[in-house]
């Protein structure tokens, strides 16, 4: 395999957790709720997957448990932000701090124990003969396929169905949506919970396909990068795909350059994704300075129907 194919495969492998987390973030923010707890949710997702997979030996049970636990955390976030109308920034921050603390606490006994298996792969040998693409797609794991499918489903959901219309209405103008008979609180709750569960799956993918064992703070800021990617992708699932793989490529590029015998110390190569995140966001801010950025209009604004619940 040549360097490009290897890099593409690495980019997809490193980009899939980012993609899942970004899609989760898009669902949250399209409904008008900021999700800054991505880092904590990913860590919780990763640790729950590890614990349940090691204890039960069943991947399905582990993934179900991950979805369940992170959905409960999503419920907590939506209760604070939708029902109590609390500060969404602070709630997300609390989620990150609580998630990293709790995941370190729960993960201590299984730290360093390898998982019983990695994410199962879908072998499609008939694709092999096609150059480059065949190599990439013939041997991808189920979670990656799931994430690709999800991009398509969410794209259609958001832009082509009445559910998506309701979702966008709730995120852009909850008062209008409410007048039209859409149940704003219910929609916000559902999408925040679904989004949190997706971010949890992103954490699961990190341990299944990317890092072989649980380590404290294993996500190393990828949750935050995903928060940036939501903006980078302009709240659009299709763009999220390219953005996530682009960052996946950056993430693995440093490692590859190091293997090629670079003179630049590895510490600087590891800084690349973080610095590029900032630069990309600055570029977007500069480019979109005089036009709408695609931000849901009511993002971060709690909806209060006067004196009613």
């Amino acid at each position: 395999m040549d360097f490009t194919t290897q890099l593409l495969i690495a980019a997809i492998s490193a980009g899939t957790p980012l993609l899942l987390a970004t899609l989760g973030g898009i669902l949250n923010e399209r409904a008008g709720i900021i999700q800054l707890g991505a880092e904590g949710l990913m860590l919780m997702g990763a640790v729950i997957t590890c614990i349940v997979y090691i204890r039960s030996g069943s991947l399905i049970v582990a993934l179900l448990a991950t979805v369940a636990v992170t959905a409960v955390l999503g419920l907590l976030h939506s209760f604070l932000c939708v029902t109590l109308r609390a500060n969404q920034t602070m709630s997300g921050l609390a989620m990150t701090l609580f998630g990293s603390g709790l995941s370190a606490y729960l993960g201590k006994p299984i730290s360093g124990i390898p998982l019983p298996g990695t994410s199962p792969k879908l072998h499609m040998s008939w694709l092999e003969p096609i150059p480059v693409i065949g190599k990439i797609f013939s041997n991808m794991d189920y979670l990656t396929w799931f994430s690709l499918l999800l991009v398509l489903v969410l794209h259609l959901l958001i832009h082509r169905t009445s559910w998506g219309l309701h979702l966008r209405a709730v995120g852009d103008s909850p008062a209008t949506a409410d007048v039209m008979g859409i149940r704003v609180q219910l929609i916000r709750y559902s999408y925040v919970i679904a989004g949190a569960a997706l971010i949890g799956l992103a954490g699961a993918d990190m341990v299944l396909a990317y890092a072989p064992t649980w380590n404290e703070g294993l996500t190393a800021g990828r949750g935050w990068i995903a928060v940036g990617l939501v903006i980078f992708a302009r709240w659009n699932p299709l763009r999220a795909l390219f953005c996530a793989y682009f960052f996946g490529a950056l993430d693995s590029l440093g490692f590859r350059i190091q293997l090629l015998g670079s003179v630049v110390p590895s510490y600087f190569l590891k800084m690349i994704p973080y610095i590029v995140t900032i630069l990309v966001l600055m570029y977007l801010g500069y480019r979109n300075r005089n036009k709408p950025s695609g931000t849901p209009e009511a993002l971060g604004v709690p909806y209060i129907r006067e004196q009613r619940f």
Partner: protein
Amino acid sequence: MSPKDVSNAAVIEPTPSKPAKRMSFRLEYDSSRIRSPWWTPILSVILALLLCAIFIAANGMSPVTVYQKMFHGAFGTAYGFTETMVKAIPLLLCGLGIAVAYRISVWNIGAEGQLTVGAMAATAVTIYFPDLPSFWAITLMLVFGFAAGAFWGLLTAVPRTHFGVNELITSLMLNYVALLALDYVVFGPWKDPKGFNFPGSPMFTDAQSLPVLGTSRLHIGLLFGLVAVVIYYLMIKFTKWGYELKLIGANPTAARYAGIHIKRHIIIVMLISGGLAGIAGMAEVSGVTHKLMQGISPGYGYTAIIVAWLAKLNPVGLIVTSILFGGLIVGGFSVQTIGLPSSISEMLQGSILFFLIAGDMIHRFRIRRNA
């Protein structure tokens, strides 16, 4: 029906057609109740302790024993108490910086990185000017620490003011950059040649170390923190700048129409915020570790966020909460001896923040019986 009843019924709910068989309640939201009662922080801490007790019990330990052990470790002995105060110093300095930024809703979560670059800059002074007399060494380290932290804060502020980039993301990304830079210098150019190949800078000389109280590890950095708190109080209370911050915090649009340069204020508060965290980093290397190494901060920058929020950005509250959280960190370390991970203190911190933000809102709701 008296006229009063009729008017009430018209405003709130249509009168039920038949008499209600069971009592029903509804929640009423009153957005005018902005000030939360004084006891919400205390209640938050208690509820967080109860929540984490569940996790401790699930681990097969008695929560009471664990909390007793933590409390004793942090406040029960003279050594423990001075250690708590040592940990409270960076929390106070970072928390103060964060409080300044949060006054105008600039969500700086980059104190960890700002502290790290402050520590690196202070160490740079010891490496490139090794023979300065004590006074000049310490002064220069302070200035460099402040400047480096402020510069790191500026890197967060400028994308926000001139490019509209959310400061949360920028400041967090810069934390990782700062930690990687720290790794680079302690493994690379600044590694102690006599350090048996361990990562870390050479030990500071006595002239480069902050004076300590007696034989304890409690250093003069505490004074920096207290002085900064007093200045913060005076600035907020008595200057035009403090008034403008209050105005921006209360209503940014009104402040802009009143002719206040919000961008300039964002840059100023981020310089102060970063600079204070930088001083915390300088105090940490010069007063506690006496050399630059990995893990100089066990997450002070993140804990300081909760310190600032729990104190409701109030100067006296900051002193109290930073001592409390210093105790929490020391207590977290002390339960390691009975086989519990020290991350229990992180977990407690996160849950305190959850209860706190819920508590800030929950008093705005009133339960009313439906008529």
